[in-house]
Structures are given as structure tokens and as C-alpha cells.
């Protein structure tokens, strides 16, 4: 230090120029805050519009118009020996005739359509369950068919000229008579959750899709959670850093960005093509979703492991814990909240994934809920896809309702992630 320090420069903090830059800095900060608020507001507005439009079109699907009427179970139509083989179509027709005695045989064909096609089977099931009804009268509440349901929900405008209307004046008059007689009710649409898919909107439900999604997610979780955590632990804690592990790392990150339809094609070629696994099965769907979820879980787990403070590792190592004891006794428990959050977010993503399931045939028309993961099934998003594609008016509202159900499950899963995180998080 031979040269003397430079002469001290005086700063005048009252200089108006300095004050101006300060003001400019504050203004910049305010602008940033405003922009942030504006973008948040825009995001919330979008979310609100989405939910509101879904709720507006979907709420109608949560109720279903029913008619309560007496079905005359004559021995002529249903023999007491074989109640399951009875002529229930005729039972329904005769019972309707009793309500509308003036309707001719020709018009009967029209009139019968007021009840859902499923009505005859509901009567059959009730009679089979209680054969003593034969020869008597059964009072049963059955759904009306979709056009009448739409009429009751105000979706069919009576002011439209008859030629352009789904229902003729006469048909509307029949329905109004039922309504005046107090036979019409609109209870909660249990069928939406208790029935599987159907060609008839009034009978279609999500049971098959819910079970299909459940099995698929279960398989996906059982595969991707242990494999993902295992891979992440190995890569993060045990693997040497060399070119080979670098390549693996880059590829895992790339896999997370691969479009899901590609995984679907892979599953189609490998699981269905080579291994001949069953088509449309939730098991195969789960495996496909596991392929997609794996990178997410690996990346989240590695990040969570990395975030564990090195002091904890050192403490355990310094006491003579083996590498494995350090990882399983200290690092993994501390990383658990992060791992669980990553896993649940990965599973939530899988729950909403449609494209790969389409390719392995989980968009088939299946009218019974799967009993196991190996039976053909649909999943919630593919069911939405099918319904959105269906022309019947009733499916429009059901599509929105199914989306609401799917969103409900997503919200529940994300809430679980938050709660688990809170529960397992430790402070130090």
C-alpha cells in the first residue's frame, strides 16, 4: 500500500437528482406490485369463469327427473316360476295405458318413450327381488327419458315451433299431465355415481370411470412411488458422478417433458403389442401413467433429498452411521414432505391424463364397473371425453358434472398434499 487513498468524495443526500432516482425506484416497485396483482386477478378471473361455467352447465346433471307410478304386474306377463323372464316391456306399456286410458295402441309407441329404457329393467329387478309382487301392483320411481328430463329442466323451449322441437305438443301435454298429477319429482341423481356408462344419458353414470381411475391410480402409485424414490435415492446419494449418471440425469429430465401421447404409443406397442396384456384394463392404464409419473417423482424426490441440510448428514456420519443408515434414518424422513408433495402432484397429473389412456383403449364403451384392475374400464378423463363426444342433449350437462367430479378429486388430492406436508414438516 504505497499510494495514498483517493480523496474522499462527498455525497449530498439532499441533491434533487438523488431524490428523483429514489422516487423512480419506488415507482418501479409499485408498478411491479400492480402488475403482480393484475396477473393474479386475471388468473382468479379465469378460474372463476371456468368453475362458474362448469357449475352453470353441470348442476343440472346432479338432479334427474323421475316419475313415480304404479306398475301392474299381472301373472299374464310375469310367470311366478320365472320372474326374470317376464314380459316387462309389456308391463310398462300396460301400466302407462292405465294412466293414459285414451291413448290409442298406435300412440302407445310414442307414449312409452316418456320413461327411460331402463325402467323395464328396474321393474324386473324389483320383481325378481320380491316375487310376491306378481299379481299385484308395484309403486316405483323411475327416471324419465332424456328429452323429457330436458323439458323438465327448461332446456326445451315450448315457444319453438313444433317442427323444430324435440318433443311434439302432444308429448309435452302428456308430461304436463303427469306433472299435474304430482307424479314427477327431481331428486338427486344417484345414478351419476352408482351407474356405469350407458347409451341413455338418464342412466349413464361415473361408477365405471371412478373405479377405473381408482385402479389405474393405485397401480400407478404402487409402481412409481417405490421405483421413483429408489431411483432418486440411488442417483442422489450413492451413484458416482460420472458421464453415465449425467446422461441418466439429463434423460430423466427429458422424460418429464415427453408428451403423454408418446407414452400412450409406447404402452400400446409394448404392453399391448408385445406382452399381450388386456386391452382397456386399468392395470395397463396404471402402468402407462406410472411411466409418466416416474420422472416427476424422481425429480421431486431428488430435490427434496438435496434440500436436507448437509449438517444432518455430517452429524450422522460423524457418529459412525453407515451411508444407508444416514439415508434411511435421517435424510429420507426429512425429505418425506417434499417427496409426498411431488408424488401427489404427479398422481394428480396422472388422474387428469387422457391421451395415453385413449391409446390403450380406456375410452371404450363399457356399461359395467370393473371388478378388478384387469377388467376393461374407462377413467374419469376418458369418460369425459366420451360424453363430450356424445350427441344426446343430456350428456352436455353430464360432461360438465363429470369435470366437476374430476376437479373435486384433484382438489382433494392437492389438499392432502398440503396437509401431509404440514404434518411431516419439521422445524430446526
Amino acid at each position: 500500500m504505497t499510494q495514498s487513498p483517493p480523496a474522499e468524495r462527498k455525497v449530498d443526500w439532499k441533491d434533487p437528482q438523488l431524490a428523483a432516482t429514489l422516487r423512480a425506484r419506488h415507482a418501479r416497485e409499485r408498478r411491479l406490485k400492480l402488475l403482480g396483482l393484475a396477473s393474479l386477478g386475471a388468473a382468479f378471473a379465469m378460474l372463476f369463469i371456468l368453475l362458474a361455467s362448469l357449475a352453470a352447465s353441470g348442476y343440472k346433471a346432479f338432479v334427474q327427473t323421475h316419475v313415480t307410478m304404479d306398475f301392474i304386474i299381472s301373472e299374464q306377463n310375469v310367470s311366478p316360476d320365472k320372474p326374470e323372464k317376464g314380459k316387462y316391456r309389456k308391463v310398462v306399456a300396460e301400466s302407462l295405458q292405465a294412466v293414459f286410458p285414451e291413448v290409442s295402441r298406435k300412440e302407445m309407441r310414442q307414449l312409452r318413450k316418456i320413461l327411460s329404457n331402463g325402467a323395464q329393467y328396474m321393474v324386473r329387478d324389483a320383481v325378481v327381488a320380491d316375487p310376491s309382487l306378481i299379481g299385484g301392483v308395484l309403486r316405483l320411481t323411475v327416471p324419465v327419458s332424456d328429452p323429457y328430463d330436458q323439458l323438465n329442466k327448461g332446456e326445451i323451449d315450448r315457444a319453438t315451433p313444433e317442427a323444430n322441437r324435440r318433443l311434439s305438443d302432444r308429448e309435452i301435454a302428456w308430461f304436463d299431465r303427469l306433472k299435474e298429477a304430482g307424479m314427477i319429482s327431481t331428486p338427486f341423481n344417484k345414478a351419476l355415481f352408482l351407474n356405469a356408462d350407458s347409451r341413455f344419458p338418464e342412466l349413464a353414470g361415473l361408477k365405471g370411470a371412478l373405479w377405473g381411475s381408482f385402479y389405474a391410480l393405485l397401480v400407478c402409485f404402487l409402481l412409481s412411488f417405490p421405483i421413483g424414490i429408489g431411483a432418486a435415492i440411488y442417483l442422489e446419494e450413492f451413484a458416482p458422478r460420472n458421464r453415465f449418471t449425467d446422461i441418466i440425469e439429463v434423460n430423466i429430465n427429458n422424460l418429464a417433458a415427453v408428451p403423454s401421447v408418446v407414452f400412450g404409443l409406447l404402452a400400446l406397442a409394448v404392453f399391448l403389442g408385445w406382452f399381450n396384456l388386456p386391452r382397456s384394463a386399468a392395470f395397463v392404464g396404471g402402468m402407462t401413467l406410472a411411466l409418466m409419473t416416474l420422472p416427476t417423482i424422481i425429480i421431486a424426490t431428488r430435490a427434496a433429498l438435496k434440500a436436507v441440510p448437509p449438517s444432518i448428514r455430517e452429524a450422522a456420519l460423524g457418529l459412525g452411521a453407515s451411508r444407508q443408515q444416514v439415508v434411511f434414518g435421517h435424510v429420507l424422513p426429512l425429505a418425506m414432505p417434499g417427496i409426498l408433495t411431488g408424488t401427489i402432484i404427479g398422481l394428480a397429473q396422472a388422474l387428469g391424463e387422457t391421451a395415453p389412456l385413449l391409446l390403450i383403449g380406456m375410452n371404450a364403451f363399457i356399461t359395467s364397473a370393473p371388478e378388478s384392475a384387469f377388467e376393461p374400464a374407462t377413467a374419469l378423463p376418458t369418460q369425459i371425453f366420451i360424453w363430450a363426444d356424445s350427441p344426446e342433449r343430456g350428456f352436455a350437462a353430464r360432461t360438465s358434472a363429470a369435470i366437476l367430479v374430476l376437479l373435486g378429486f384433484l382438489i382433494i388430492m392437492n389438499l392432502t398434499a398440503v396437509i401431509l406436508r404440514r404434518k411431516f414438516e419439521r422445524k430446526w
Partner: protein
Amino acid sequence: MTQQETGAGGGEIKISARDVQVHYGDNHALRDVSVDIRDKMVTAFIGPSGCGKSTFLRCLNRMNDTIEDCRVEGDIRLDGEDIYAPEVDPVHLRARVGMVFQKPNPFPKSIYDNVAYGPRIHGLAKNKAELDEIVEKSLRRGAIWDEVKDRLDAPGTSLSGGQQQRLCIARAIATSPEVLLMDEPCSALDPIATAQIEELIDELRRQFCVVMVTHSMQQAARVSQRTAFFHLGQLVEYGETGQIFTNPSDPRTESYITGRIG
């Protein structure tokens, strides 16, 4: 190189290091360190930041093994036994050579579990009663028993910084090590907690060979019997603490302790 023989007194030679070299990749972090550390006394390593004193300390329980591309050469013997010999298990070695770190790092578990962890993984206690005894004895030796005896189930992280560090010392003692390595054990603590730890270290040297790295020369002067001065990856001078601080033989040591370098 006669430094390692200077300064008589104290116990027998516990650790003896000869020509230790440490490389981090291409960086030659420590060169030609030869030192004899005696039992039942406190040896302090002093020196400016980045001089290699912590690196050398971490060679003594092979903590450097966990750092990738760190290479240790030379000969380090604990009781005459080469600790880098292939048949030596670092896991076993670290139970014999305990370590206390700069930042108190209790596990986010109960106070009891913190202390019981070492004995548990090494299987030192046959039953619960024996483990209880080890825990109590260790906490007493760590001079923290009276403060925590009523709340052994409380998380170790709920203690104050100084208490946490004493808990960490108790945890290290619980495996009955022969050597205690301390890497700047007081640098994250306030003066009162520091005084308590220093008092504890003075107590501990009756039973253990204590090696500590410290930034504070006053601390080295207060608690250690022997001091080694490291500078730029080399051991400059090693001898009795009194002699190092009053009559250093190397001009670099003198510059450092008088505050001209560092």
C-alpha cells in the same frame, strides 16, 4: 522437521500423521503435514480461513471420504494403526473418533434419541436400562443434564444454540470415543455459551484426546495445551500453546498472532 517433537509433557502420542497431502481435484489443499497429537490434552489448530486446518481435522476421522474427488495421501495412525488401511472401516473409525461441528446440528428428534442414536446403531447397549444409563452419563459429561433431565422427550432442536452444541458433544461422547474432533465448536455461539463450552472442553480432556479447530486465538490460548499453526495448506509451527503465543519460532506465526496476516 522437528516440530512434532517439541513440547514435552501430556499423555502419550495418540495420533501421528506423517507427510499428509490432501487434494481436492486439482487443488493441493494440504501439503506435507506431519504432527503428533497427544492423548488427554487439547490440541488447537489455528490459522486463517482456507489454510487447511479443518481439512486436516476431517482427515482424522475420514470425513473427507464423503467428499467426491478428495484424495488423502500420507500416513495417519491412531494408536499406531493406519486409519487409511484398506481393512479399516470408516464407520467403525468414526465411532472411535467422535466429531462436533461448527454449527450445532442436533437431529430433529428428541433429546434422548439424539444421544441414544450412536449407541443404538453400534449396538453398545444391551437393553433399555443400559441405554438410559449411557444417555444420562453422556448428558452429564456434556454438562447439560441438569438443563434437560426433565424434558428428554423434547426435540433437540428446541434448545438454545449453546445447549444444542453441548447436546451434540454429549451425543459424540455417547459412543465412548477415544478422540474428540471439534470443528470451530463455538463460532456460532454467543460469549456466554462459548465460555460454557470451553469449560466443558477443559473438563473433557481428562478422558479424551481433544483436537479442535478454532478461529479465535484467544480461545486456543485459553483451552489448549498445544497449538498448531496452519498457513496456506502447510503446517507452519506446532508446539506448546504458551510457547507458540509468546515465543513463536516462525515469522509467519508471529505475524498471524500479532494480527498482521489472517
